[in-house]
């Protein structure tokens, strides 16, 4: 894991996207629901745990959390290794 080459595109665009939808969020309702600051903190912590468990996209190997959904974190290396073996065998199955 190296922080030198962080893929910055999805992070920035996801922040912009979340900001656009988040501006529509009005939590100061007198009724109907109770969503306090503690709930927001709990949601952020839960979100980070979820992001860590989800892992990264394929091809992204910069951060241990999901910057942008699929647990390829462990399987992907295996697939790349197998693919290179196949490529050396030359049976016509190529990845990337």
């Amino acid at each position, binding site marked *: 894991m190296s922080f030198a080459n962080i893929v910055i595109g999805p992070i920035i665009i996801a922040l912009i996207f979340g900001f656009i939808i988040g501006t529509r969020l009005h939590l100061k309702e007198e009724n109907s629901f109770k969503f306090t600051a503690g709930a927001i903190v709990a949601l952020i912590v839960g979100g980070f745990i979820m992001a860590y468990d989800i892992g990264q996209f*394929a*091809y992204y190997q910069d951060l241990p959390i999901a910057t942008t959904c699929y647990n390829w974190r462990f399987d992907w290396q295996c697939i790349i290794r197998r693919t290179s073996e196949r490529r050396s065998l030359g049976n016509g199955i190529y*990845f*990337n």
Partner: protein
Amino acid sequence: MSDYTTSIRSLIMALATIIFASALFDALYGFKHLIQPGINLVYNAIGTQLVPNMVTLVVFDWRGFDTLGESLILVTAVLVVLLVFGKGKILDKNINEEIDSGIDDEGDDE
């Protein structure tokens, strides 16, 4: 509507159908020789180097113009729903206030 107009329309419709059918048949006749499979070969060979997800590659790169129309279908559907079922009325407070004040001003002027 008189019988004369109807018969003229039927004649035009029959002619148009014949022209369209012959054009379609002409296009389909020998269709095998008209197809150039080059673009398909290109996308199948080096497409995944561009975008790893082949479906997205086809939808947004090869057939991007289709997707533009496809995304406009949703707008059209919403418009038609609002026009047919809502009779053009949207209950947004700001817009309704603007409309109401505009109508009132016009009435005062009259």
